[in-house]
């Protein structure tokens, strides 16, 4: 990985994951409701769509936290960039929690 790419990944990686989760949840929700996943009841009476919508952010959060762990020693970046990348990745993790917690709670398709 070139030094430039490394900077790009370190800085934009966390929020790129947030953006992917966002897109997946929004599109998945709309699609799931249209194809009926929001009605069917799966294990424990939970709609399959609900499980998908909860698992996607959890996966994103896991990857973001993994990224934060990789960045703990700066990942070979210049110190100021390393701090910036750590701040951004931590912020992305917080944003993921803040942004997607309620998909576990709100009514699905109405």
């Amino acid at each position, binding site marked *: 990985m070139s030094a430039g790419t490394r900077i790009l990944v370190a800085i934009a990686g966390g929020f790129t994951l947030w953006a992917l989760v966002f897109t997946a949840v929004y599109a998945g929700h*709309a699609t799931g409701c249209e194809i009926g996943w929001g009605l069917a009841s799966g294990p424990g009476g939970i709609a399959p769509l609900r499980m998908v919508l909860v698992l996607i952010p959890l996966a994103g959060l896991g990857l973001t936290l993994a990224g934060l762990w990789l960045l703990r020693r700066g990942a070979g970046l210049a110190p*100021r960039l390393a701090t910036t990348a750590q*701040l951004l990745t931590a912020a992305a993790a917080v944003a993921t929690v803040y942004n997607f917690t309620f998909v576990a709670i709100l009514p699905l398709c*109405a």
Partner: protein
Amino acid sequence: MTKAPSGPEETVESLLPGADPAPAPAQPAAPGDGVTDPLALDAELRRIWATGPGWQRFAAVNHSVVGLRFMVTSLVFFTIGGILAMLIRVQLATPDSGFLEPGLYAQVFTMHGTVMMFLFAIPLFEGLAMYLLPKMLGARDMAFPRLSAYGYWCYLFGGTLLIVAMLAGAAPDSGWFMYTPLSSQPFSPGIGADVWLLGVTFVEISAISAAVEITVTILILRAPGMSMDRMPVFAWYMLTVAAMMLVGFPPLILGSILLEAERAFGLPFFDPLRGGDPLLWQHLFWLFGHPEVYIIFLPAAGALSTLIPVFAGRPLAGYRAVVAALVAMAFLSFGLWVHHMYTTGLPHLSLALFSAASTLVAVPTAVQIFAWIATLAQRRPKPDPKTRPGISVSMLHVFGFFFIFVMGGLTGVMLAIVPFDWQAHDTHFVVAHLHYVLIGGFLFPMLAAGYHWLPLISGRAHDGPAGRLGFWLVFAGFNGTFFLMHITGLMGMPRRVHAYDAESGWHWLNLISSVSSFVMAIGFAVIVIDLLLTLRFGRKAEPDPWQAATLEWAVPTLPPPPYNFAAFPRITGRADKLEPRKLAPVLARGEGYLGLARHGWMETPGVSVARGEPEQIVILPQQTYLPLWTGLATGAVFLSLLFKVYPLAIVAALVVVALFLRWPVGDHAAADQGELPAGEGAVLPLSSEAPVPPAIWALRVVAVADGALLASLVFGGLFLAIAAPGWPPPVWPELPVLPGVVAALALVVAWITSRMAARGDVLHGAPMLGAALAANLATLASVAWMIGALPPLQDHAAQAVLAAVMVWLGLHAFIGAVLAFNALRRLRTGHVSARRRIDIDLLRLWQAGLLPAGLVVLGFPTALKALALAALP
């Protein structure tokens, strides 16, 4: 070569052994033509870089000239937009006003929004960035000066098209966000909507060009040693903004193309009776439109992050937190667009997703605001008493920014709250909010920036009370106009009504707004007169008048010479902690990198992205009329589309392609030059012989925008399949299998042959290039076959969407063929060698990107069908 005076640790440091990337054997610093005397060097550099007089001004490509043209032109459009705003306020001053009839009023408010957004705000910051970035980063020009000029002509012609249409009474009239179906053919039968779609797309070409070259300039055209973490924070802002433009503008361009295709050819992308959906337009528009607000705010915030530290005499507090905040803001801003669509009946869960992101964006905003407050709090007196003017005019406008923008931010959080927005949406509350955000967050910072950089741009110092008077008039007038408008909106006044009842209770609020708006207009007039008087009669500005700490003030003269710097320093610390007053004379003497003039070349250093180590000598193009001709030909394409003379449009488009192929590369690329001395002991290749020249960077950056366009199209199609009424179509539009297979194979062949052509000794690559050309033509033919096999495109959006993705692929195969043809041609004329391989590398990169994208396109019909059939009836 003499040593630079070794200032404090953060300034230039010419010849520290070990700090030099290439401790090569001692080289003469200024070989070539051997100009060493500073005055002679200045004269020679001026001769090389100057824009010619008279008609040659139309050939200008210099970033200072083009940047100023952008700014001045945008101010002319601002005046036009302001006059339109005055007409609106006159109309609304009294109940049941008969000043404008409703049709004309609709044109006026549509054009006011369109002009202010597309013809004023975006071009103004583009011009400022174009003007400042090379000077701040340490470069002699932007990476693609001809592209700047071409972008300017596209902007000027597109903007003129809109204004001329308005004067002819054929302005668009569906509101600046052009909601379908009101903007569709049956409800807007005239030419007005076409003028908007084509004119704005024409202007968008300029925005995308600017984004490409801002990105590449920041990535590789910096002073040696300026690693990414040392960049002045304005460069981080503009890099982020450019990236946002690359992703945010394609959805609007796509939407405009689809809507124009619906209006002109009846392809029903937005028609609910034939499988289209008006909400598709809203998604595409706001997917552009909301990031757009931040695209406008962030350059202004970048200016604030630059000039507040100058006032405080301290570097920006929390540089890292600010960079993190602005990157976070850039991402979050793409998760807000549906907050313009809370009342469209989407499920509450969807709305909540966007509501959360919309409130979250307040956090990075607050981080920046408090970083600015912290910077002010750490302020210290300047050593030079002359630069302690108390609160400068610039800082007054910063006060205006704080007051107004904070309020706009607070109402923004309110509007992000779904139940409140159900009441406030589409009322004058929103009108008030958006003006608080845009005027507070863009106009006031830009005025602050204008007064701050006035001495740099004009060489004149600003004095006198008129600037303060102008500020207070605008500030008071603004709040008088828009503060009470929040109440007007909550009391029920919808947007875009041209008249209202006296019983509504809105009349006194509207009257105050209208009177105040004239106070604001007078304030702007005072500011304009103040600036004109300063330009004409102002005393000469002294160098670095504010004791700033960034490189743009280290130019040899104010205003700067067209070449900016006679030599480039080595940056060894943060580039916002420099001492321009010490640096300027050293650089003016030609001490540093590239302090020379040889062969009439326009040279500037190119560095590695991360560490800023010099890697290549970029040779920039001379002034030329080609951008003008290409701009005119592009204009001919748009005019032919507007007047529906389609054969002419195709001819004009081919002329555009031919002209682009003629954009010459200088003589230096006709033969191998080898590595050349670049000063400070560095020996570097020319960009034409460097492994990753600027053109390759440009293609990588364009690929981002192109990918965003394709992604918008693919998601748009899938959206219709699940959300639009009337899906699936009665008869599914099946595509023949054979041409799909041929196209896929041809994409693979073009990819392989382009790689083989680029391998080893490229001189024998002609057969491979020929094969790549043929493979691209095969893709094109297969695509044409598939489109031809579709049922009539007007009947249902399903086949229209399939045709649209196929057109995307065909267009890209065509460009691949053009690139292959170009590489063949350049191989024959001797412009390609084992060292000079840009033309082949461009093709290789193109095919490498087109292969996966093309496979997505070819797989799309299957995905669309599966989704359409799976969706519940």
